[in-house]
Structure formats: C-alpha cells, structure tokens
C-alpha cells in the first residue's frame, strides 16, 4: 500500500503511524481538500480503510454535526472509528467493533471551523448554515474522488447522527445526499456511486420532533406535568435552531427539573 500511495501521489497523505497507536491491518490517509480558494476554506478528512482482505469494500462518509461538532472527535474517536483514546490522552487501543472492518470509513469535519478544518475568512465562522455546508461538503467529495480515483464507481453511502452531530439540530446527511443524487441525475455511470444513507438519533422535522421529545421527557419522568404542558404550548410550532423567547424559557424550566443527568444517555453516569 505504501507503493500504491506513492504511485497515486498520496504518500504525503498516508498516515504511517499515530502516536500511541497499536499495530493495525489497515491503511489510513488524512489531510485537506480546499473547497473555496478565494475564502480559503479547507476541510479536513481522515480515511480509515478496510483491511486488504475486505476490499473492495464500500466507501462510507461519516458526518457528525452539532452544528459545529467534529467527526474526528465523535465518530472517529468514541463511536465507530478504529481507535479509542485512553484516559492518558496519549495512547490508543483498537475498537473491537470498528466499522472499517467491513467498509472504508471517511470522516469529514464540516463546515470550516470544525476541528482541524479551517477558513482564512473569519466571518465564515459567523455566517455558516445548512446550505453552504452542504455545498462545501459536496465540493469536498468531488475533489476527494479525484485524489482517490480507486474509489470512483465504488458503492458509496453517507451516514451520520443527530444534526449529523451532537446537539439539537440535524440536517447534513439528507441535504448532502440530495445534492449527490441531483448531480448524478441523468449520468449513466456516476463516479460517485451513491447507494443510500443511514442516520441515527436524527432531528428530522421540528414540529414532530418537539412533540416526541417532550412526550419522552414526560413519560420518562424527567419533567413535571406543568412544564410538559408549557413546552407543548410554547415550542411545538417553533424553530428547532432559533427558538423564540417563550420556548427558550420553557426549555430552561425543563433543564432545572431534569437535574444533573446525561441527557445523551439517560442511565449513564455523568462525567465528573
């Protein structure tokens, strides 16, 4: 694979060894793809390939979101990635259930400003949104496939979680999927051979998600009857990303009633 990397000009992006890593049977590449030269926006990726014995395995793009959260931080380092980081913050151990056992996993930090992805235009950090993020991620994909031509025409999937990420909003994966699908339309053999997407714990529709969220909080006994009624009265017709003051007040009331628990995993001890 070193020879292959050299031949394809990717030697400079091959990850030969990560500090504190155990021996592995797969290759890794990481680096940047510029998605907007004028603004100087570059997105960081980390590819954890499947072992040779599993090739040619599908390619799966994994997106965490937030918005503003890192796929390297979550997907790659505490969920489906090849390694887990030890409490010493310096050594790694293999994740027995790593998804790159059966697929080539491409972690992408998007938009610019997330993790190692950066922009030379500071205002980009203050006016990001779904649309530009989806378009930048699509531009990333098109250029990335030029870097890695061996993945052209390979079965390709997109996967992600939440806002593709960690807090209350979630849209990246279907929006990017829609862009890939629409740009493939009419192309007999699209080089981005997009087959589908999978999403987890995903906010999908503000109205229905609010109704289901407050019902869950109530029937799991973490909010009072009054707050349950207040949330339904002041939030369900509101935006998930930009809630109005009345909804914010109701959400704050619910936070007080919930107490010191990990809302991301109700029965897991909090990190103290």
């Amino acid at each position: 694979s070193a020879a292959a990397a050299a031949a394809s000009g990717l030697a400079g992006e091959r990850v030969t060894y990560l500090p504190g890593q155990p021996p592995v049977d797969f290759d890794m590449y990481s680096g940047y793809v510029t998605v907007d030269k004028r603004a100087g926006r570059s997105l960081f990726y980390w590819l954890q390939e499947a072992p040779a014995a599993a090739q040619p395995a599908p390619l799966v793009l994994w997106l965490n979101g937030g918005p503003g959260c890192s796929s390297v931080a979550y997907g790659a380092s505490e969920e489906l990635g090849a390694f887990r980081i030890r409490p010493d913050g310096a050594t790694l151990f293999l994740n027995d259930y790593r998804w790159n056992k059966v697929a080539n996993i491409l972690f992408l930090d998007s938009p610019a400003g997330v993790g190692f992805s950066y922009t030379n235009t500071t205002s980009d950090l203050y006016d990001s949104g779904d649309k530009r993020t989806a378009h930048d991620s699509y531009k990333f994909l098109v250029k990335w496939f030029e870097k890695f031509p061996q993945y052209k025409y390979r079965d390709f999937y997109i996967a992600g979680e939440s806002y593709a990420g960690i807090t209350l909003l979630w849209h990246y994966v279907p929006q990017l999927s829609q862009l890939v699908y629409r740009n493939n339309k009419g192309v007999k053999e699209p080089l981005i051979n997009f087959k589908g997407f999978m999403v987890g714990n995903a906010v999908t529709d503000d109205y229905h998600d609010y109704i289901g969220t407050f019902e869950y909080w109530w029937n799991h006994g973490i909010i009072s009857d009054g707050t349950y009624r207040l949330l339904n009265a002041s939030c369900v017709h509101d935006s998930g990303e930009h809630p109005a003051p009345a909804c914010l007040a109701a959400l704050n009331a619910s936070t007080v009633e919930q107490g010191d628990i990990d809302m991301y995993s109700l029965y897991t001890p909090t990190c103290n």
Partner: protein
Amino acid sequence: CTERYSTEYYNRPEVQRALHANVTGINYTWATCSDILNDNWRDSPRSVLPIYHELIAAGLRIWVFSGDTDAVVPLTATRYSIDALGLPTTVSWYPWYDAMKVGGWSQVYKGLSLVTVRGAGHEVPLHRPRQALILFKHFLQGKPMPDA
C-alpha cells in the same frame, strides 16, 4: 469523559503532524465542537421530510436508527417524524436479536427502515458498539435486522 481524552490527544503537536493536520497553525486549540459556529448558525430549514420523500422516490437505501436512552433526540421524536412521512409498512414492529438477546426493535416501511438499539444513548456506537456494527453490516447488505 471520552471528549476530554480526545481534546488532549488531538492537541498534541506530534499527533497533528502524524495526521497532516493544523498545517496553517491555527491559533486556537482543537475542540470537539465550535461554539462560535453553533451559536451563529444561520439557515436551517424546519424539516428535511421533503428531502426524504424525494430520495425515497429515487429508490435510495434509507435507514434511520435510534438509541432508546437518548433524551436529546429521543426515539419518540424520530417515530413521530417517520410516521409523518406516511409510508406503508412492509414488516411491522418486531424485536431483532443479537446472540439470543433483544438488541432492539425494527419496522420496515416502503422505502425506509427504522431500527432502535436497546439501551444505547445518542451516540449509539459509543454505548452499544457490538449492536451498532451489526446494524451497520445489515445496512450495507440491505438486509432487515435479524428476527431470531
């Protein structure tokens, strides 16, 4: 506390060099999430259901999963939203099994598969790594979750 470990690890200069990262020498530390981006997020449609309808009609493979101990984007939120798509059911709600134990439940609609993972939080592969890999393999193979 895993976020603490990754924050320490990815701020190590030798790790950034190995990953060909931080080539511009950003003058802020690497963080798991960017508060600036999150606090200043602009356009965000209230629903992506229309996109689901378009991509289901296109025949793409679409799976939605949910860890059922997550209270941030709970299973009930996902069920109300998926229900709002109004898709016909092809395989009604059933328990799926991993080594004789119920790993979660699943329902297959025309054009979409919904899978829950029992006991998993928001980050399903963090809390139920083995079941998450089983889910992923079935997604890639396009096969319903195992009912026995």
